[in-house]
């Protein structure tokens, strides 16, 4: 880089510092000038600016910051000899910054207020989700009473997008989880010669638990997040406002089609995921030397209807939850551009937490009911 380099000579015994050259953002010296000047031990420092050949607002800001930093350290600073050409910019900078009020960044909340705010936010979220759930139920009943008012074409389109397009990933995840589960348990069970029970372990775990759980998590990532971001960006574009002022209900027109689609689509996906998981388990069984039929025979001996029912029932509830939370977060988003991302993140997090909680509740419920 050409240009006149910035130079600084001194301070001498009387605390005079001679400035020279060009002072701007690109020529400013690296490192702390204040530290160097304080070390010199002078209690008063005078900057002689007569050697400066160029000064801009950034350069002036550097000098004024130096004045403030040194002042805080107990060193008095004065400036003199401003060259004629730089007077205007220097005075503009001095006058302008003299009028800047002393603002400081808003202090972060203390521990107790922050905790309080977190709890209030949590309660507010819960309240909003509950209210939304109520609205969905009411509009859902309305839909059942007058099914011809439903947005069935949209519902079908959403179901297609959420189910058909999610088939490959669901099958892949199901298959791999079945495979891993079978492989890990087979290693231990072989030690005791009971590797035949791998079939039961994999089968029961997948059909009762993992099939529905994994599908719900895949759908949270694929569809729930899509619902949040779609609806939140409609909010940003004032499409939701437009809908409301035309007397149309966003819950009925936007949320219900998504919720209905996902509630009925999730069980189908879950069944596909289950089958892929069983297939994965079967592959491991075959690999450790059992004929294909053994797996199915062993499994059908221990599997009863309640196992299949629990998995199926859970997948309905999970599908409903994923869509409900996804839509709620979208519709309740703020209306700024960054709110779309926030709504999506919150939707996914809420869904994963809710699914984990619901799954545990179901485990207790089915245990008590002895299913």
């Amino acid at each position: 880089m050409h240009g006149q380099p910035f130079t600084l000579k001194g301070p001498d015994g009387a605390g005079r510092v001679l400035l020279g050259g060009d002072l701007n953002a690109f020529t400013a010296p690296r490192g702390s000038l204040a530290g160097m000047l304080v070390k010199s031990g002078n209690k008063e420092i005078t900057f002689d600016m007569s050697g400066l050949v160029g000064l801009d607002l950034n350069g002036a800001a550097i000098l004024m910051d130096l004045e403030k930093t040194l002042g805080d350290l107990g060193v008095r600073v004065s400036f003199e000899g401003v060259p004629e050409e730089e007077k205007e910019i220097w005075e503009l900078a001095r006058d302008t910054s003299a009028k800047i009020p002393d603002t400081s960044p808003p202090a972060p909340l203390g521990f107790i207020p922050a905790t309080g705010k977190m709890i209030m936010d949590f309660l507010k979220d819960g309240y909003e989700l509950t209210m939304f759930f109520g609205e969905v139920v009411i509009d859902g009943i309305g839909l059942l009473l007058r099914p011809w008012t439903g947005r069935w074409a949209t519902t079908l389109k959403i179901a297609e997008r959420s189910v058909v397009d999610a088939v490959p990933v669901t099958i892949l995840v199901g298959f791999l989880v079945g495979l891993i589960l079978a492989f890990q348990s087979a290693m231990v069970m072989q030690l005791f010669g009971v590797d035949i029970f791998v079939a039961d372990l994999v089968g029961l775990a997948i059909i009762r638990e993992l099939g529905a759980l994994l599908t719900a998590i895949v759908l949270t990532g694929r569809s729930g997040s899509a619902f949040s971001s779609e609806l939140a960006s409609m909010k940003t574009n004032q499409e939701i406002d437009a809908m409301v002022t035309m007397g149309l209900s966003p819950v009925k027109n936007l949320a219900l089609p998504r919720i209905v689609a996902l509630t009925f689509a999730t069980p189908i996906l879950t069944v596909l995921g289950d089958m892929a998981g069983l297939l994965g388990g079967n592959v491991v069984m075959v690999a450790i030397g059992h004929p294909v039929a053994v797996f199915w025979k062993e499994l059908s001996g221990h599997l009863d209807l309640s196992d299949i029912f629990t998995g199926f029932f859970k997948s309905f509830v999970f599908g409903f939850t994923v869509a409900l939370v996804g839509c709620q977060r979208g519709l309740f988003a703020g209306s700024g551009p960054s709110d779309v991302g926030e709504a999506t993140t919150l939707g996914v997090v809420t869904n994963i937490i809710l699914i984990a909680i619901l799954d545990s509740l179901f485990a207790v419920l089915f245990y008590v009911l002895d299913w």
Partner: protein
Amino acid sequence: MGQDRENLISNDIGKGVARDALGYDPNALPLEVIDMTVAYPGQPPLLEGVSFKVEHGEILGILGPSGCGKSSLLRHLVGLEYPRRGTALVLGEDIFANGEESLNRARHRFGVMYQSGALFGDLNLLDNVAMPLKEYSRLGPGARKAAAALKLALVGLSGFEYHMPAEISGGMRKRAAIARALALEPSLLFLDEPGAGLDPVTATGLDHLILTLSRNLGLSFVVVTHELRSILTMIDRAILLDKTACGIADSGTPKYLAEESEVPAAKAFFLRDQEERAL
């Protein structure tokens, strides 16, 4: 620049021309556009043979009805698109001479304010303005803060340093965007429709801010606009773009364009054939 000041600048820099810290000749024209063709890839050109100059301290207007290619011309001038033909010189140097390298160098010498302000939503105003300084200058945190606060004060936003862009009004966002464009002390500022979406009072305030900055700092401006009021208050000279002419229909002072120019585009733009069109 005075005589003795020139003598102070060392002579080992090519041909005795004074250079600024980035190696530019500060006395060269802030902007010179030469025979530029504005076109998007795979589409017919929007404008052809566009040539004009911007003097030091001048506020140049780019005028024309919506859709005539004002924003597109601006995108080419700031190097967001490459011109199909012709080029632009900033302080005498071709910004397209060798790809991104010369563009990035030139980008330290001009600032841009976009139509929406385009502040970074996750940073407060102070950090928005300090961002280019953090990336490109040697300023430490304290000096960066002082410099950013100074720029915000210049545009009348003192006291709002720690506000987020979403918490301030549209007019304030545009002011903050101007402060950010000023961060690296450019000699030239491009503004795309500064008054768009603002009420007349706020828009006029912004026009006056631009005038003041141009006077106090000797800044040159290229302002895209189609608002008659701000054209008449702040523009020194303007080029009028026209779709049918596929280029500059006419240029001159706003007074000339508004009252004397016989070009149909100028008459239409300044509504001088209103009576005929009303029929």
